[in-house]
């Protein structure tokens, strides 16, 4: 036991004195998590939060024009410039501004828009109670064209959303005018005056959220994806310093010296495994803490944990084992540090790309989604999702943890048999 403790102590000392290795293991992943989360957060904002510049020309100067103005101004989606009662030159200028990209869209609510709606309502009511209305419907204008012009780079989906919003505004106004007209007629027929508070709030509203097995959860954000994903990436990147440690020990002759001493190779390798496993657990803890407490200072929403820490510990330990096993395999097979670092870096990046670290799985094609299931980082991410997004416990993360453990066992077996074959070859 003392030999094992002294070996662990030695590995720890060697590790903490390797500044470059430590940087690779802690500082690089933290920078990665920060940068990628920030980038994806901004991308998310571009789609959902960054205001789109538009120009609204209100030539109507009546209910519809004002409703459009109010509705669009109150919508966080738009950054509106309003021009009232614009002449033809101003309208042309606005179109030029949209064409040059100053605005992504222009809306011209023409003069008489509200009047047209009123007339249409009057025509409708006139069909039912002509005696009350007493208007000549033949001359009533029935439709009006609201002019929409877009920057050519805007997508169809964006144009459809805008048209849908504007239709909603005009429909609201039309309904309101119909209601108020009928209300006035009823008042006239019953000889009374009614004060009606027309409800601004719609009767039907929508309650949206994500479904999960364990009850209500918070909306998954770039933090909820990036922190676990890049934690796994950092863990697997440990294969480079670990493999380097094994190769250096071999090349310096220290391993040969140890082979002549009364200590088993198992003691030597398990002490490395334990120290590097602790490092992976520490990496996970540090990155998660940064996600919870430091990222909010950069304007990123904080990482939210699930309730079952047992699940988190299980998936972290098994992912750490998988990563260290991978490092041991590379360190055993690679002949030089250059080979190990190149193979380690490239294979980690490939496993990360396949596993859904960079691109979430749901964006991948069905074929790639199938292939990604071969990556241990995919198992790790799935396990972490269970904890971070679905508040799952040990039982739910167990299948992923088992896969990671089998990957670890597989790597160690490959290293072991490679060593046996190599020793036979040397003989």
């Amino acid at each position, binding site marked *: 036991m*003392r*030999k094992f403790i002294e070996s662990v102590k030695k590995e720890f*000392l*060697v590790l903490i004195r390797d500044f470059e290795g430590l940087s690779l293991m802690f500082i690089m992943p933290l920078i990665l998590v920060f940068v990628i989360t920030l980038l994806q957060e901004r991308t998310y904002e571009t789609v959902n939060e960054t205001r789109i510049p538009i120009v609204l020309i209100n030539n109507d100067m009546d209910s519809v024009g004002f409703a459009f103005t109010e509705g669009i101004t109150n919508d966080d989606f738009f950054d509106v410039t309003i021009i009232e009662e614009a002449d033809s030159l101003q309208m042309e200028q606005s179109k030029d501004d949209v064409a040059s990209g100053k605005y992504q869209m222009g809306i011209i609510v023409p003069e008489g828009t509200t009047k047209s709606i009123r007339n249409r309502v009057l025509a409708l009511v006139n069909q039912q109670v002509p005696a009350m209305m007493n208007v000549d419907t033949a001359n009533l204008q029935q439709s009006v064209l609201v002019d929409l012009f877009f920057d050519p780079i805007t997508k169809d989906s964006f144009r459809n959303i805008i048209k849908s919003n504007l239709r909603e505004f005009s429909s609201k106004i039309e309904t309101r005018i119909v209601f108020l007209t009928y209300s006035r007629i009823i008042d006239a027929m019953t000889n009374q005056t009614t004060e009606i508070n027309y409800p601004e709030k719609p009767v039907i509203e929508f309650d949206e959220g994500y479904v999960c097995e364990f009850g209500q959860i918070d909306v998954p954000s770039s933090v909820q994806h990036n922190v676990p994903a890049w934690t796994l990436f950092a863990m697997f990147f440990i294969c480079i310093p670990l493999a380097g440690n094994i190769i250096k020990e071999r090349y310096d002759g220290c391993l040969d010296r140890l*082979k002549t001493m009364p200590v088993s190779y198992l003691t030597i390798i398990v002490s490395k495994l334990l120290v590097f496993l602790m490092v992976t657990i520490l990496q996970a803890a540090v990155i998660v803490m940064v996600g919870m407490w430091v990222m909010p200072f950069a304007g990123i929403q904080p990482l939210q944990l699930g309730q079952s820490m047992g699940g988190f510990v299980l998936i972290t330990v098994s992912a750490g084992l998988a990563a260290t096993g991978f490092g041991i395999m590379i360190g055993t097979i690679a002949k030089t540090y250059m080979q190990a670092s190149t193979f380690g870096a490239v294979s980690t990046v490939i496993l990360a790309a396949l596993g859904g670290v960079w691109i979430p799985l749901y964006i991948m094609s069905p074929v790639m989604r199938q292939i990604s299931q071969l990556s241990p980082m995919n198992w790790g991410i799935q396990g972490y999702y269970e904890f971070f997004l679905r508040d799952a416990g040990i039982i739910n993360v167990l299948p992923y943890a088992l896969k990671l453990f089998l990957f670890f066992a597989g790597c160690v077996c490959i290293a072991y048999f490679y060593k046996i074959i190599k020793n036979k070859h040397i*003989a």
Partner: protein
Amino acid sequence: MEKTAYIEINNLCKTYIKGKDPALDGLTLSINKGEIFGLLGPNGAGKTTTISILCNLIKPTKGYCKINGFNVEKEFNLIKPLIGVVSQEIAIYKSLTAYENLMYFGSMYGLSKKELKERIGYFLEKMNLTKFKNEKIDHFSGGMKRRVNLIAGVLHDPELVFLDEPTVGIDVQSRRVIIDYLKELNNEGVTLLYSSHMMDEAENLCSGIAVIDYGKLVVQGTPKCLIEQNDSKCKTLEDVFLQLTGRNVRDYF
């Protein structure tokens, strides 16, 4: 009184790559307990291969060797506590201090902390390294590294020490400290198997010498006998060595 054979090397053959020249080609040697035995030969003669096989780091293609009656291949676990190895490379951790290195390697032999502290203190003093004990090996000179490398191989009080070119690339002062200590160690009854290219050092240090070339034993005897047995023009061991192995430069790969 006749000394018993402590190391027995019997018809040892080693071929690294099939079809290429063997590194060892039927080497047979016998080394007595308490000897300082020099293994001499040009580059590629098979010195390091012989020591590596004796340390069970590589397996022989043919033949066997025994240490204190134990078969190296089959009973190496019984041999491990008896031997110390001072390799050609500086086989210590460069980012650890001298003290940390020695504590680690010493503990691998199962020595207690107290015992280790005493021994490390003794050896550091003997090798003039006490004031540098807490310095990282990375900051040491070549000679200092060699001395720590030597201590790591003898810290556990072995019966037999393998020394593969222990004084290569160091200054005269460090070399003298190492040689003096090896003599002292031998006086305490420790057997030393030593390989070197330093003929004067071997002549001065060794009680027995084997010259090997192309993996075969060329000659074996005491330095004095070897000089006397050869051409009268040979005044030193180096002269004998050159006469036996030729003056051509040896390159191998």
